């Protein structure tokens, strides 16, 4: 079901890409009432980068993330994660593809209420049938500042703490790409800053690739670069962003007609 894409040689080409989308199109609904959420999006993200995806509501941000992360199937186009092409198949096949390659952090945390912090963190490993390295799990949780809350349940934690559990859970499988969907959307500013710093640390220290969908210019300023999305198309890119520059660009998104990255 999944074939290995031709990887470029290290000498000749640029750094291997963690994520590559080619002319990805996705629309919802049928016939007359169809809404095009993604309109031929092509992009490539290098390994070890932190990218924010921004755009107004309905610009296709979430659809982009879901298609890139194998949560949804694009109508057409190619999605390649870590050089391996995602070619549809059943949900079970998509799930197996995601395991080990992709980690998630969601706005609503999506921790299981019946499990403790440690159990939530090791759940992806258990489900994938991989060996659980207790010491490493403990280390990861300590790194996100939850070393003393291992036996707590999600409802005993604050929003920021829950999101940090989610980050630890995403890190522990050592995925190629971590997708974060509005990870700070439900947090106060201080918790948000901690979470963003942890995501940046995942990139800098652990060499992960992080793709974050957000509507907050401050959150986006933590990324290495920002991709702008409007009406299902890429509408520009900003490297080494500052919150002001992002907000400025976002405000004038409708005026531009730039495309391609």
């Amino acid at each position: 079901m999944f074939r290995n894409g031709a990887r470029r040689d290290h000498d000749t080409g640029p750094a291997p890409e963690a994520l590559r989308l080619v002319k990805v199109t996705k629309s919802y609904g049928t016939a007359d009432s169809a809404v095009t959420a993604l309109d031929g999006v092509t992009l490539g993200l290098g390994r070890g980068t932190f990218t924010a995806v921004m755009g107004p509501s309905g610009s296709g941000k979430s659809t982009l993330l879901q298609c890139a992360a194998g949560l949804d199937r694009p109508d057409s186009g190619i999605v390649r994660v870590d050089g391996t092409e995602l070619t549809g198949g059943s949900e079970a096949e998509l799930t197996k593809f995601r395991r080990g390659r992709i980690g998630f952090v969601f706005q609503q945390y999506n921790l299981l209420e019946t499990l403790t912090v440690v159990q939530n963190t090791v759940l992806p490993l258990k489900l994938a049938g991989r060996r659980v390295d207790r010491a490493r799990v403990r280390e990861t949780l300590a790194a996100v500042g939850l070393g003393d809350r291992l036996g707590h349940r999600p409802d005993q934690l604050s929003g920021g703490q829950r999101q940090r559990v989610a980050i630890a859970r995403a890190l522990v499988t050592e995925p190629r790409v971590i997708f974060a969907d509005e990870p700070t959307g439900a947090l106060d500013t201080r918790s948000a800053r901690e979470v963003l710093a942890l995501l940046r640390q995942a990139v800098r220290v652990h060499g992960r690739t992080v793709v974050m969908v957000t509507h907050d210019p401050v959150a986006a300023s933590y990324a290495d670069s920002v991709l702008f999305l409007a009406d299902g198309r890429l509408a520009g890119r900003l490297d080494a962003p500052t919150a002001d520059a992002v907000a400025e660009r976002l405000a004038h998104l409708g005026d531009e007609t730039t495309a391609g990255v």
Partner: protein
Amino acid sequence: MRSIRQRPGRFLATLLSAFLGAAVIMTFNSMHDTAGRPGVDPVSAETLRTAAGVVGGYGTLLVFFAVASTLTVNVRQRAAELELLRCSGATPAQLKRMVVGEAAVVALVGAALAVVPAVLGGRLLLEVFRDSGQVAGSVDHSFGVIALMSGIDITLLASAGAAFLALRRATRGRRRHGRARSFLAYGALAAGTAAVCSTFAFSATDGALMAPPAYGAILLSVGLALMAPRLLEGVLGRLAPGGASGWLAVRNLRQRAGDLAGILMSLILFTAVSTATLTMQAVESDAVAASGLVKSVDAKNLETLNFTVVGIIVVFVCVMLVNSLYAATTYRGREFGQQRLAGATPGQVLGVVGAEGLVLTVVGLLFGTLAALAGIVPFTVVRGDAVLPEQVFGVWAAVASIGAAATLGTSLATARRVLRTPAVRAVAATA
């Protein structure tokens, strides 16, 4: 009222239990009407009155429990809606009126729908009595005021009362981990043990021999059912299954032991009551057949009643079981979505649900069987000479397979349906 029209599906279970309850009550109470007709001989009238009295009483209890169980689930599902109404200025009294009113309407509709089946059922029942010679062949069926009024009144009262209790439990928030509950549980266990022991005071041919062990078994099963959450926790403490699905299932069950008590309760009651009654009846019939005696009218009455009562209980408990499992599983769509996003394949999620269902089934059947055996063994020791009658195996196998099929079938089929929603949307829907 409008909320019923908007979501007829949610009231279907309540309607079904009201309908079934009303049908059963009316069917049997029409025997009162029939007995009251002029020209019915005293023996026939007596048979009819006993049948109506016993099953009518059972029926009232069952309607109450069944409607209460479906309504509790219903109210819990609508907790968000009720909270919203409260926030937008509805007083508790208004909410109460709304929920109780809805339940009353559903009960009325159920009772109205039940009239025709009850008339037919009453005719059928009378025919059974006539064929077995318990009632004179000349007696005609009559469906009159008693049947109609009692059916509607009981269904209405049971529904309104159940709705009131369900709402009170929902708005009270935290349930009291009641001392009352343990008291009741121990009381039922003690009374059950006493009843079972008193079996030995009867002689083998006593007409009422079947009563103490049967009631004992029922009381014991009620006691065990009330202690269901604690029993479940005890069993789970000893479980350590392999595989991710099993691991997750045990952890889920440990956390949700309290919520699952209702399901376990139905299962225990179902197993105990049907196994005990059917086995004892089979032993009794065989013993009478072996002795070459012809059954008296009373014995025949008892047999008919036993089978009817068990039939009614089986149907009701199945409705309750299926309804609460269906609701509990539907409610978990978000949790399933989270499991899938954490890397569980749909097969693994079904595995979790299956493992949970299996544990519930095994625990329910185990304790149900214990209660049933506690009644059966004294009965057979007194009636025959064996300790364990051979009839018990066939009966138990049938009861166990029905219980297991209902539990596992409902949870897996519902989970399958819930899993059709894409994981991302399932998580977002009730966020």
